[in-house]
């Protein structure tokens, strides 16, 4: 298959070898599970259980609220200990509503929805509904509710389902292991998703540094003529959906648009497996494979973990720390976020937990920009990081927005390559956050304006109604007065 070049990019040291050759290990049941109500982009779920309730494995414990949201299910059977605010696995470390379950050790299943007997005969909505009620979100890291993306077929003309197995982040190998060990399930899930989307073609993009995964997937896909497995060049950020689409189809996603606008929907390989489990067996998303790695880990490995397992329990399972980590990262080293604490739970979008040593974080004091222009050369989005950062430093966010800061995918290539160690991507994350906040404020002001106009209108209407009522009463009084006078005269 002909591939197309993508712009820029970098070649970091991959460091996947410590985990990618070891089979996935299932973690024993931890002593408590902490399930946050928001593990996805969109509105948080609404708790349906309270302290003291007993729950079964797979039981719905929080329902989704609104169009973009996802429900949560009990990962095992046990008792709800509390519904409380706990530290979120988020760089802010802010508290978040969390359901705490104490497992009873029986791991008893609740009654699950019936498997969809023949998914290829079912209509798209049935499959999308099943995916929505199973709480499946994008497992590559963004955690966008998958069912919303499966409904794109009704509004867009789609031709390809692209399964993202690029896994371009260093250290991470969870998708690699899932593809090697569960290739048939991934392919089955992809075919079900393509059926729901109405896309004739399925392309699976895997970076060429994962030859065993490519081989396993090619073998599993051999019987299906519409499924193609493609080895894509090893180039960070190949796993960014826009870049993978461009590398495989040659189509570039327009600024501020979706890949669906150019006919392609991208899902992660682990998401495809979760969809297969939900459709074929009615099982909701209860756990995921997490890469536990980094130089400070004693035994780096891929662990099959239940959602809600504390990161500290996961690290203890992997033998604890070999040395004091300089930084704990949630996700990959390029785009991952710092972990606020080890007492946070594993969530659906958590692909890796990295304990990095000081040598690995490679932190240096910030120096002045030397105008070398390397960040411009390597920016995969064709932006000019040096210029945007200069404007953001002086808080000229409107200028930065004109230069395209909102099109930055935060891949971190510019920060990685900068010889002066300027935290470029940090500037862009700050600017994007500020611009989004300003946008939210503007929308709120618009709402206030509408509410205020409605208020004035309501008062006017009430006054009008009162005047009309007064007039009617007066008229009635005038009518009855002559009558009474007549009576009196009679």
């Amino acid at each position, binding site marked *: 298959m002909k591939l197309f070049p993508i712009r820029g990019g970098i070649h970091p040291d991959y460091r996947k070898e410590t985990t990618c050759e070891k089979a996935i290990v299932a973690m024993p049941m931890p002593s408590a599970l902490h399930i946050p109500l928001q593990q996805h982009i969109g509105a948080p779920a609404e708790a349906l259980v309270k302290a003291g309730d007993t729950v079964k494995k797979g039981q719905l414990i929080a329902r989704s609220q609104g169009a973009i949201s996802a429900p949560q299910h009990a990962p095992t059977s046990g008792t709800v200990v509390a519904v409380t605010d706990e530290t979120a696995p988020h760089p802010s470390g802010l508290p978040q509503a969390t359901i705490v379950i104490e497992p009873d050790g029986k791991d008893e299943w609740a009654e699950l929805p019936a498997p969809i007997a023949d998914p290829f005969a079912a209509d798209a909505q049935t499959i999308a509904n099943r995916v929505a009620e199973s709480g499946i979100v994008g497992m590559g890291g963004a955690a966008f509710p998958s069912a919303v993306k499966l409904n794109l077929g009704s509004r867009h003309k789609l031709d390809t389902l692209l399964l993202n197995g690029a896994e371009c982040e260093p250290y991470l190998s969870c998708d690699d292991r899932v593809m090697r060990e569960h290739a048939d399930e991934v392919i089955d899930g992809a075919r079900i998703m393509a059926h729901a989307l109405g896309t004739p073609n399925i392309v699976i993009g895997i970076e060429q540094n994962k030859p065993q995964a490519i081989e396993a997937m090619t073998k599993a896909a051999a019987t299906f003529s519409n499924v193609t497995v493609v080895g894509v060049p090893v180039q960070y950020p190949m796993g960014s959906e826009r870049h993978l689409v461009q590398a495989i189809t040659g189509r570039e996603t327009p600024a501020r648009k979706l890949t669906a606008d150019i006919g392609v929907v991208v899902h992660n390989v682990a998401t495809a497996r979760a969809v297969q489990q939900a459709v074929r067996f009615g099982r909701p998303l209860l756990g995921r494979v997490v890469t536990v790695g980094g130089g400070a880990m004693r035994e780096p490995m891929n662990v099959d973990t239940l959602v809600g397992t504390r990161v500290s329990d996961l690290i203890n399972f992997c033998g604890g720390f070999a040395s004091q980590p300089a930084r704990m990262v949630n996700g990959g080293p390029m785009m991952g976020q710092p972990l606020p604490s080890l007492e946070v739970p594993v969530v659906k979008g958590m692909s890796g937990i990295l304990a990095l040593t000081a040598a690995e974080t490679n932190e240096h004091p910030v120096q002045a920009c030397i105008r070398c222009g390397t960040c411009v050369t390597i920016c995969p989005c064709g932006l000019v990081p040096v210029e945007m950062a200069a404007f953001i430093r002086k808080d000229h966010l409107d200028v930065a927005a004109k230069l395209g800061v909102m099109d930055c995918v935060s891949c971190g290539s510019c920060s990685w390559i900068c010889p002066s160690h*300027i935290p470029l991507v940090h500037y862009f994350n*700050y600017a994007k*956050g500020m611009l989004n906040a300003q946008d*939210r404020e503007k929308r709120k002001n618009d709402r206030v304006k509408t*509410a*205020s106009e*409605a208020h*004035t209108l309501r008062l006017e209407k009430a006054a009008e109604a009162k005047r009309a009522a007064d007039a009617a009463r007066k008229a009635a009084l005038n009518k009855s007065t002559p009558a009474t006078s007549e009576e009196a005269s009679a």
Partner: protein
Amino acid sequence: MLLAVGSLAVMGVALGGILGAAARFLAVEENPLEEELKAMLPGSQCGQCGFVGCGQAAAALARGEAPVTLCPPGGKAVVEALAKKLGVTADLSEHEEKLPEHAYIIEDLCIGCTRCIRECSVDAILGANKLMHAVITDVCHGCKKCVPVCPTDAIIMKPIEVTVGTWHWSKPEAAQPVVH
């Protein structure tokens, strides 16, 4: 010489006449600037600027009688927008940037008198006579008009809390200049 004086005088009279006629017949009733300024203001008619509503505040701004920093709920964004439109430099030294707030009713103290409901210009307070009142925080824009009318001091202002959804990274520290 006479010809020059004469022709210029004739031109002056003629052009002056045209201008005078134009001023009379093509006069604009309202200052168009007012409308534009009004659109920039929050439009919640809260009256914190000292004018009756946003329309009057816009008129005063257009006449140059009010400072661009007059609107407390608008915050820095409105000040900057107004300053840009009016071509003045905003004096932000006096302006203290406060965090967005919303009203909150302490339920133990509320007696259900409905005075705050009547005061609210965006219908953000829910309740009825002798029944508990509550503020719809999503709609409340923090104008504080309800606070003084409460006979039991049951209304306080609370900062809008940052959540995981609204949090974002703060600005990184820049490089220290090298001194040789």
